[in-house]
């Protein structure tokens, strides 16, 4: 136990203890006070954790030294600390948002205390999950995370969609845990140990290792939401309370990525087919994830599909890393995994930003359908700005953080093509084009979202749009992070580099990430910002000089334009959605009456998930049908029961006679 006295660990453990303590404050009768005090204490705890994580050589110059606490049950090596850092970093703004989010439910007289408890368990179990070093402990944390998330998810449980979506999540998570059972059994069998730190397996040791890889790919892939396994994600995330959907997309699905990276660490080096598998699945997830997103009208569903896309991008990075490790190229590995890790952080940041922003909007408008939104920029300027920053970042457009990680991944592609000649360049180029295509789709999607939600005129009359300081501050923190990482990537890249070179990538720790001259970006972006500012001042001056006024928009001479004449989201995206109609299961219904006095015409378009609507549900229904056919077991007559005894005895006796 003396290892607990270590200065790092004291702070570290203190953090968790404080977080646990916050549950005490729920005993306060007045719900508002209880909420407030609990979250405050929780925040303090998280802050402590973050400090301890940062102080543990993440941002300092020292090398990360992996420490074991609680007799190896907890291990803090580079990867764990990095993911712990992500969890705590993102959890803080989300928790801040909790204040204002739950006020709403208190007004509705909903019992929120359960929710807070489950949220607390969720946070803590997730933090423990990424630092767990023992398989059973890992599984326990995993299930604690899953189930507490589920229980918190059903806050508005009487709604039908909530039941449905949460059940998807629930059932899928059970599949995951079964897969993980077998995964860890095999690992245990091969190494004879339950501790992660003992898992070092050569891929060449027999058929079972590929099975391990596949299992981890499926199990953690379902959690992460790679394309064939993503079907639960767009069901579950929209119906969750916005706080949770932010946490889900921001942090929880990243545990899947964590798992896959861990598996890589166990099996390093992996053969090349793993890399190709990863790349193909990821590029599919990326392209179709964003394409599905484009087809959605439900903002949170749309964002959920964007998580699929971004997980795809992360997966691309990991795939590059795999290929690098297969060909024993540390440089490529560093670039691939570096891009993946940095994108994990970035996505955690901007995705939670977007979810919180959409949560604020949805709560005020009491709808998630973006076709009913619009003109909110005049209502809530700051929210609009933050959301805009988030969307620019998620589309991977400079000068924000999304671009940095995607840039690393691109560089990884170039590097791979460079290092291994012959047919590699052309394949890599294909992937590059795919990634660029994804970027274009993302731009289309987020211009749509922003413009329909925030710009133009209000499509639905908004009585009062209430934003609290908490919303703005939590969004502000996240937006600030986006900007900082975008403008000054150096330290973050350094962290990622350190994490990777610390026991993750074998071979000489090459500094390929550092070699990219990041200072260019800082200079270019800041000069852009500066010149925009200057030009803006000039513009103001000129407008002073030559005058400026506002007038209604030009409507081809038609005078009284009204908000319903604005361009809608579905028409914005229609042209793109009709291209992969069959995959998106994209239906349009147009009713135009041809009568002399035309009735109002209708248009509606919606897209179902292919995997869900064409594979999962049919299979389940088929099974149900099949089982329904089995009648002979449901006899009510006692004589049949007796007959069963006789029959079974005869059968068994026959077996006995035939037994050699």
């Amino acid at each position, binding site marked *: 136990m003396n290892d607990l006295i270590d200065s790092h660990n004291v702070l570290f453990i203190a953090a968790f203890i404080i977080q646990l303590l916050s549950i005490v404050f729920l005993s306060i009768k007045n719900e508002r006070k209880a909420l407030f005090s609990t979250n405050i204490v929780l925040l303090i705890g998280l802050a402590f954790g973050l400090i301890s994580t940062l102080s543990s050589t993440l941002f300092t110059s020292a090398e990360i030294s992996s420490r074991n606490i609680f007799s190896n049950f907890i291990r803090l090596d580079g990867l764990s600390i990095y993911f712990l850092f992500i969890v705590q970093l993102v959890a803080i703004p989300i928790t801040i948002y909790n204040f204002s989010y739950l006020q709403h439910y208190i007004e509705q007289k909903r019992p929120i205390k359960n929710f807070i408890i489950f949220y607390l368990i969720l946070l803590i179990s997730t933090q423990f999950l990424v630092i767990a070093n023992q398989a059973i402990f890992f599984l326990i944390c995993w299930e604690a995370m899953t189930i507490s998330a589920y229980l918190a998810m059903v806050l508005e449980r009487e709604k039908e969609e909530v039941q449905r979506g949460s059940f998807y999540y629930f059932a899928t998570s059970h599949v995951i845990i079964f897969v993980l059972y077998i995964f860890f059994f095999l690992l245990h069998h091969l190494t004879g140990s339950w501790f992660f730190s003992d898992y070092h397996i050569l891929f060449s040791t027999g058929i079972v290792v590929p099975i391990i890889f596949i299992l981890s790919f499926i199990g953690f892939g379902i959690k992460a939401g790679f394309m064939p396994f993503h079907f639960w994600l767009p069901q579950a995330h929209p119906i969750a309370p916005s706080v949770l959907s932010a946490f889900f997309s921001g942090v929880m699905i990243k545990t899947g990525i964590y798992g896959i990276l861990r598996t890589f660490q166990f099996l390093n080096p992996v053969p090349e087919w793993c890399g190709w598998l990863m790349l193909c699945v990821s590029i599919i997830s990326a392209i179709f994830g964003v394409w599905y997103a484009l087809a959605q009208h439900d903002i949170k569903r749309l964002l959920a599909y964007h998580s699929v896309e971004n997980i795809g991008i992360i997966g691309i990075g990991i795939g590059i890393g795999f290929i690098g490790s297969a060909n024993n190229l540390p440089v490529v590995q560093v670039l691939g995994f570096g891009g993946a890790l940095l994108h994990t952080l970035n996505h955690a940041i901007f995705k939670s930003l977007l979810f919180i922003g959409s949560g604020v909007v949805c709560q005020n408008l009491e709808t998630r359908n973006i076709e009913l939104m619009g003109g909110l920029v005049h209502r809530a300027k700051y929210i609009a700005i933050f959301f805009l920053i988030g969307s620019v970042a998620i589309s991977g457009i400079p000068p924000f953080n999304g671009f940095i990680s995607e840039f690393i991944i691109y560089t990884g592609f170039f590097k791979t093509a460079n290092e291994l000649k012959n047919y590699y360049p052309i394949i890599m180029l294909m992937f590059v084009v795919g990634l660029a295509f994804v970027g274009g789709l993302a731009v289309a999607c987020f211009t749509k979202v922003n413009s329909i939600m925030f710009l133009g005129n209000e499509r639905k009359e908004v009585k009062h749009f209430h934003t609290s300081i908490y919303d703005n501050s939590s969004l502000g923190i996240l937006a600030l992070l986006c900007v900082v990482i975008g403008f000054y990537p150096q330290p973050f890249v350094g962290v990622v580099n350190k994490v990777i070179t610390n026991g993750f990538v074998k071979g000489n720790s090459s500094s390929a990430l550092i070699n990219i001259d990041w200072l260019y970006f800082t200079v270019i972006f800041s000069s852009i910002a500066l010149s925009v500012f200057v030009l803006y001042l000039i513009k103001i001056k000129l407008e002073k000089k030559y005058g400026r006024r506002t007038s209604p928009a030009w409507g081809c001479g038609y005078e009284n334009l009204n908000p319903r004449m604005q361009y809608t989201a579905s028409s914005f995206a229609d042209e793109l959605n009709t291209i992969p109609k069959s995959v998106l299961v994209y239906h349009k219904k147009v009713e135009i009456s041809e009568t002399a006095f035309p009735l109002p015409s209708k248009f509606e378009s919606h897209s179902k998930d292919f995997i869900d609507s064409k594979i999962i549900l049919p299979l389940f229904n088929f099974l149900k049908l099949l089982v329904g056919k089995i009648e002979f077991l449901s006899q009510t*007559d006692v*004589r049949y029961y*007796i*007959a069963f*005894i006789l029959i079974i005895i005869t059968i068994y006796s026959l077996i006995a006679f035939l037994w050699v």
Partner: protein
Amino acid sequence: MENVLSILFCLSLFYVVVTSRVKAYVTVLRVQGIILAILLMIPFIYHFSIFGIILPATLLLVKVFLIPRYINKVILDLDIKRRIEPTIQQMVFLPIVIASMIVIFLASNILSKSTELNVIPFASGFSAIVIGIYIIMFRKKLIVHVCGFLILENGIFLFGTAVASELPMMIELGTLLDVFVVVFLMGIALNRISNTFEGFEITDLGRLKD
């Protein structure tokens, strides 16, 4: 001697199979009880012991007097129709029974090669068990089911004597007691059933299902 009794037992079984009156079942139960009692008595012909007589006495008491009387009482109380209601006619039932009895006899004959056991009581006991099951399976009346169960029990008893199992007397008594209580409870249940469902048919017992 044992074989003779066993044959008698088998004959009683045949009677059960062909008869179509409930009362006949009770009579058969009595007869079988007597046969079993005699079977138990056989050893005491040679060396009599007052202590050993207890078991046959109880058997006689339970199987010949108490249970049949009780069943008769139930039949009278519930004025059950005297016809058993078979689900298949006798002309089909009898061949099945005979066939299975033949199978059993042959099988036990083969089995007796490996370990020496007196085949006839063994086989007849076993066929009583099977026939008891058949009766339960192919008759509608619940009271007949009870009789079938009792025949099964008798069969087991005969079977036990055949394999010459030395169960301690206390446990033998316990088994007898158990059987009696089972029948007793079944009687009560029948009473209730006939009160609850008028003109009780097995088909009425179809409420519990998925």
